[in-house]
């Protein structure tokens, strides 16, 4: 690679990273101005340690092996694409997926939080989707809680020797669903219903999001499996470098 190409590649990757983070924000986000101030601040504060850990882990990855930049860009771009697709669902409304599963499986939940907040910022500023005041809450549900569960599920499946494709599917699928569960709980905490308090309210919000999100989560799982198949076929050295694949087949 010539120097020029290297610079171009770096620029492309930087661009990808920028955008990769943005798509994650699309997943059913809490709308701008719909969360009381104290909750906005609290959720934002919770996110900070995750983001810092994420930045450090990404930096370490790249330092260890420059090749992993390609995969980081890939994971980011995947979130970008997936979170931009609004898909009709059985309930007669549209929603979009999170796309954070891939990054969580490859790089762990902390790294994804960084990618996710980029996407969320993009959408909040350019699309008025989600919002700046609710950024903390949305980051927590989409870029921290969801990926955390995806990562956990994947590690669990790995320990139990579940087929890799199935574990990838489960991780992405459950991570997507969990994101929406957390969103419901966040909304319920801010808006407890008069009759049953937080729990009743959470059930209500879940009732809105869950049926819509279920089929989409299946699609997200499928797409994540497809991209993992593709990466396994063509990017073995990189996957080994980040420790996703252990030994050569």
């Amino acid at each position: 690679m010539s120097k020029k190409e290297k610079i171009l590649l770096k620029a492309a990757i930087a661009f990808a990273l920028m955008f990769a983070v943005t798509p994650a924000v699309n997943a059913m986000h809490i709308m701008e101005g719909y969360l009381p101030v104290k909750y906005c601040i609290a959720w934002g504060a919770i996110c900070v340690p995750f983001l810092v850990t994420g930045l450090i882990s990404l930096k370490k990855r790249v330092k260890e092996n420059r090749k992993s930049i390609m995969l980081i860009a890939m994971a980011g771009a995947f979130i970008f694409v997936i979170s931009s697709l609004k898909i009709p669902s059985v309930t007669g409304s549209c929603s979009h997926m999170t796309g954070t599963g891939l990054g969580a499986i490859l790089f762990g939940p902390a790294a994804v939080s960084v990618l996710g907040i980029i996407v969320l910022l993009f959408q909040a500023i350019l699309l008025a989707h989600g919002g700046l005041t609710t950024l903390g809450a949305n980051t927590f549900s989409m870029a921290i809680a969801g990926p955390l569960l995806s990562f956990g599920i994947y590690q669990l499946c790995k320990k139990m020797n579940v087929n890799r494709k199935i574990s990838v599917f489960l991780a992405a699928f459950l991570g997507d669903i969990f994101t929406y569960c957390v969103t419901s709980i966040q909304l319920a905490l801010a808006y407890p219903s008069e009759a049953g308090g937080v729990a009743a309210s959470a059930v209500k919000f879940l009732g809105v999001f869950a049926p819509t999100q279920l089929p989409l989560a299946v699609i997200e799982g499928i797409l994540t499996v497809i991209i993992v198949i593709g990466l396994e076929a063509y990017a073995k050295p990189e996957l080994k470098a980040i420790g996703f694949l252990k030994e050569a087949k």
Partner: protein
Amino acid sequence: MSKNTKTVIILLIVAVLIAIVPLFAKKGAEFGGSDDAGSVMIEEIQGEYTPWFTPVLETALGGELPGEVESLIFCLQTGIGVGIIAFVMGRFVERKKWQNKTE
């Protein structure tokens, strides 16, 4: 066709079906965003609710983003993402070809 190719094709078909079937199964449905459904629910629980903050963009524009422009920005987001994935994948695929040749 290799086993992987077959799996990928089947998975793609399933994904597309899941996405398209509701359109036909629920003719005439609105297919609005579920985010909006969320705000409706808040009003149901809380009564009237006025958001205390308007999106920066809407303040700047003095109104909502026009639908066509919104889809433009969404397309832009998708396009950028797909472009990066295609670029990186293309590099990987080509590299594998070369590796096979030199081996």
